[in-house]
């Protein structure tokens, strides 16, 4: 596999205006410099799916914006599909697709299929090519009934399916996804994750995905790059992270009994309050199913919630050096 993305010593700082008096702030404003991305280097092979994660303000969106040509870096070198984003943006645009979870590229009052047609002109696709491509994408995404409805009538999950179709229309070699599952329910998240993975498998598309959801990286990606305070903290295959931290699940049980004792190997108590128990389960030692079966024997369960550990906790652990 050849190289698809190359990032070397990428640096980006922002000037932030200092607060000052009415007249002084107007006539002679003062600025402080904040280093958002500080010497990040990595590379992605063709067809690789990589999660780019980090806490809020870590510099992940800034990095992804530099890679997609939206922001210009202070220094460093980037090559996306053979193009430097800030000098060859237009040529590079044909090779990349972008999805910004909190921003839509679809026309709100029109059916998504109209946006697809407009984008086909943006990417200079021939009519026959466009028609063939849209048919195969709509079939693959099982979206025939949703692309004909005005976007304002779509649910968030349906809208995101259309966003991804729009970003894949011109067969990009590299797909940048910034928080693609933000705000979605569990079922929609699963659908979106499967579709991204399927599209990448079929076309060999390289995927770089930022997310706060451990589920996104666990179910879509092969590799994870962790960034914090603008610096690269870890660059690992996802299986290493899985054996380290994602193996943990958080189970919250609500029961009729005031208290139960769930003492099992691989189960750690987080919090016990009357009629509620919160435990951490190490899935490499015991399955979630086994824990739930045992809990059901001990009590009359009224509600069960199974969650991934929060991204912030994982990053904190990684940053503490336990995984490096």
């Amino acid at each position, binding site marked *: 596999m050849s190289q698809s993305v190359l990032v070397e010593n990428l640096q*980006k700082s*922002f*000037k*932030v205006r200092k607060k000052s008096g009415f007249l002084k702030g107007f006539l002679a404003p003062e600025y402080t410099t*904040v280093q*958002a991305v500080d010497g990040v280097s990595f590379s992605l092979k063709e067809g690789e799916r990589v999660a780019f994660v980090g806490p*809020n*303000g*870590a*510099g*992940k*969106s*800034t990095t992804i*914006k530099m890679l*997609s*040509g*939206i*922001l*210009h870096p202070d220094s460093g070198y980037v090559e996306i599909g053979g193009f430097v984003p*800030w000098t060859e*943006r*237009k*040529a590079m*645009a*044909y090779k*990349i697709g*972008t999805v*910004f979870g909190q*921003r839509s*590229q679809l*026309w709100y*009052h*029109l059916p998504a299929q*109209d*946006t697809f*047609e*407009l*984008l086909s*002109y*943006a*990417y*200079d696709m021939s009519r026959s090519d466009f028609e063939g491509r849209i048919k195969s994408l709509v079939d693959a995404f099982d979206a025939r009934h949703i692309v004909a409805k*005005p976007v304002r009538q779509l649910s968030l999950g349906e809208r995101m399916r259309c966003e991804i179709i729009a970003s894949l229309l011109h067969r990009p070699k590299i797909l940048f996804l910034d928080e693609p599952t933000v705000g979605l329910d569990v079922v929609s998240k699963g659908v979106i994750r499967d579709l991204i993975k399927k599209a990448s498998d079929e076309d060999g598309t390289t995927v770089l995905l*930022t997310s706060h959801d451990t589920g996104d990286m666990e179910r879509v990606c092969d590799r994870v790059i962790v960034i914090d305070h603008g610096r690269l903290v870890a660059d690992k295959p996802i299986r290493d992270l899985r054996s380290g931290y994602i193996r943990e699940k958080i189970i919250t049980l609500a029961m009729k009994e005031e208290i139960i004792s769930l003492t099992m190997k691989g189960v750690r108590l987080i919090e016990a309050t009357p009629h509620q128990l919160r435990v951490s389960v190490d899935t490499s030692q015991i399955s979630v199913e086994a824990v739930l079966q045992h809990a059901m024997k001990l009590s009359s369960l009224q509600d069960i919630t199974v969650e991934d550990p929060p991204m912030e906790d994982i990053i904190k652990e990684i940053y503490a050096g336990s995984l490096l």
Partner: protein
Amino acid sequence: MAEFVSNIRFFLALVRMTFKSATGQRSAMLIRAIFSVTTHLIYIPVWYVVFSVAPDLGGWRLEHALYAYGLAIACWGFVSLFAFGLRMIPEQIDHGELDSYLTLPKPVLLSAAFSSSKNTGLGELLFGICLLAFCCVKYDFSWIPMPFFLVMGSVVFASGILFFATLGFWLKQFIGSAEEIYFNFNLMASRPAPIFTGALKVVALTLVPVSLMSHVPIDFVVHHHWQTLVFAIVGVASYSLLSVSFFYLGLRFYESGNRFGIKG
């Protein structure tokens, strides 16, 4: 050349889409069109009152004021209908909407300007054209240059909007102030040309070139001075170029990221 053709095809597709989007809600469009025509009609008695006090202002009479108003309002409608995105540039900047346009292989300005339409524009455009036609019939003004003046005026107005909207790259939440500037820009275009003398004339021909939008066309309609028209065409081209260059200067600031700082 291939790139130019490709941009034109994209532009035409964009205009088709904006028009489709704007005309999607037909009843709302009709109500707004009727409403806007009614409210613009109010301006006619306003000028009637002014010219009842002073029937001749340095050679300008009621018919000239009506022609200028017709031009100004038709240009406002034309820009609102086809390039409403220009007016919304400060908001697009605030909301980071230029990001998606920057990832497309087409000029950012094209997408930003023509990606939305305001359906009140149709009523304004039609009202402006009707007022111009009324002037041609009632006061015997020539019909022939009217389409040309409409295009020229719309280019000046669009460039003016672009110039001031671009300030939104540096000024946050600028949309409210920008709308006020556009409105007053348009309002000034309907003021009698003879009041623009000295420094005011310089302003009206450069920074806020309302003279190129309405005063020069009326001067041509009355006096048929070709030199003035040629001068106006050069002025329009220069001002458009200046506005587009200013926009791309602002875009460079946007690309530096200092407009937003750190978000993630």
